[in-house]
């Protein structure tokens, strides 16, 4: 249970700060003495946090589904022709800077939450796709042969042997994808998505360092919470499925 302590503590701190930020007003007055208003109030921090998390979770879920489906398709006998191209797309796509992808989504889809969801999903599925391919391709053919020899159908081989074996690598891909998307969703404030990036952008526009700090601290905490959550998930996975690795 000690594994889950850091994410829980960080989450408590994150939610605590999101609700209790106004209590720190004296501190921010000291940092920003020349402004009347030092606590960002256009939207509650808790709402921004919820919306930020919602955007990341929806895009991660859709991205994971699409990427794992694509990865499975490209490694089956019927889709193998597409494997070189799909893996090239996964690696070339990642050279596109996330902020440029975000910017390109606006002319196509307009301002608001729709372009950011699409950009987050498209960009986020690339690391998952790459890892799904790597995970499925690295499985020893003898293992699949043995599973088939036990009388498993192709579907059973996939669900009971291949996916559990590739799962750890896929999980690492999801972690990379979510880390990038938390950062990109924050920048999404510039295209009208209401996330924790809002106070930062508002602070930069009005020259109010206190706003910038409040947004930046919460974004940083959200990233750390998520990262420690994945750390705990990965360790739990190692313990359950491959005890020799966990040592």
């Amino acid at each position: 249970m000690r594994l889950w302590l850091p994410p829980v503590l960080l989450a408590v701190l994150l939610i605590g700060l999101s609700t209790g930020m106004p209590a720190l007003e004296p501190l921010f007055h000291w940092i920003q003495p020349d402004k009347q208003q030092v606590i960002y109030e256009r939207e509650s921090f808790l709402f921004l946090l919820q919306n930020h998390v919602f955007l990341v979770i929806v895009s991660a879920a859709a991205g994971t589904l699409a990427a794992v489906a694509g990865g499975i398709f490209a490694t089956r006998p019927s889709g193998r022709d597409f494997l070189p191209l799909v893996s090239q797309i996964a690696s070339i796509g990642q050279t596109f800077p996330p902020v440029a992808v975000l910017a390109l989504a606006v002319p196509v889809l307009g301002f608001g939450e729709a372009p950011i969801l699409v950009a987050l999903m498209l960009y986020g599925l690339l690391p998952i796709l790459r890892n799904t391919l790597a995970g499925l391709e690295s499985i020893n053919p003898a293992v699949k042969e043995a599973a088939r020899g036990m009388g498993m159908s192709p579907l059973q081989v996939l669900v009971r042997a291949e996916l559990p074996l590739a799962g750890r690598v896929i999980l690492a891909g999801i972690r990379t994808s979510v880390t990038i998307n938390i950062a990109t969703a924050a920048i999404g404030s510039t295209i009208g998505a209401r996330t924790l990036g809002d106070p930062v952008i508002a602070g930069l526009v009005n020259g109010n360092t206190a706003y910038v700090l409040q947004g930046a601290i919460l974004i940083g905490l959200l990233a750390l919470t998520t990262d420690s959550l994945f750390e705990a998930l990965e360790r739990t996975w190692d313990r359950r499925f491959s005890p020799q690795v966990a040592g």
Partner: protein
Amino acid sequence: MSVNRVIAALGLLALALVWLLDLGAIQPNRIVPGTGHGLVSAVGWGGAALVTSALAGAILLAVLRVRGRYLLLLALIGLSLALLPLLLEVFASRHLPEDSPYARSSVGAGFWCLLFLLSLMLIEVVGQLGRRRGLQLLLVVVIGSSWVVFLQSDGLESLSLVREFNARPAKFEQALWTHLTLAFGAVTISAVLAFGLALKMMRSPAWQRPILGLVSFLQTIPSLAVFGLLIAPLSALVAAFPALESLGIRGIGWAPALLALIAYSLLPMVRNTFVALTEVPEELADAGRGMGMNERQLFFKLKLPLALPVIIEGVRITTIQAIGLTAVAALIGAGGFGSFIFQGLGQAAMDLVLLGALPTIVLALLADALLTMLAASFRPAAARV
């Protein structure tokens, strides 16, 4: 030789999308959304027939079992990509009203899809031909120079992207230099730092965990937060030492941007340098010692050359990342192509957004291609594939 289902599928998809979506649009001025034109309306029946037959030809070649079909496909698809801007030129000459100087033509979804799918087809063909480096370079040069010639010609003067560029050529050049200086400056500084840290980790293993822990912690914090968190301390620093201000260091601007970029660049750089240097096989080091090399010679003549491709791979990842993050740094006033993106978003001027976003992508792709080639050229001949 079998049917190439990949090219056939991509070709069919391209054919469907280019007929269904708008190829381009005409805008009365910079802000008002334009009226879209489909393939036939945009380039006439002749142009539509040409596009259709090029795509149909590619599909046919993918299905038929002709000798040397991949070379034919390469020529067909490469030529199509090189001549793609011609479609926009024809479109502009047919539809742009002559009496309104503010009218502009813009690129539609159909054109983008065609560009994207043709590029994918090209990647597949090059893969089938066995990824010869010289061939790839030739293709990039031919297609790239054709686009540059088209974009500079008068026929595309009305293209919104070209208009935005022509409105601010000096600013564009300045943005390019700022972007390059910031990104490459950060990569260079972090490469030196990372090399030092990796050496420290090799000499004293007790430092491995804290150093790797610190640099991966830095990478976890989202860019916007890092930029934001650096403003207050830097402002305080400048307030305490006013001499710093004469150097151009302020809470916003290039100083926090460079610091944040260096912090981000450390993880891939340290990790790759360390892994590369420690993974040189011990037998090779022993062989070197047996030849009478001392530890210094061993490092410079054996370990470093062997580690170089992996170190350059680290530089590649870092450079791509730094080019993207520099665009974000425009939010704290660091300049670069990001300033066009965010200005454009602020003014709802989508062409200005494109003028910032497209060069950023091109820079990242160029850096990727160049550093991949550099890493390949340093790989020992025996390990080359």
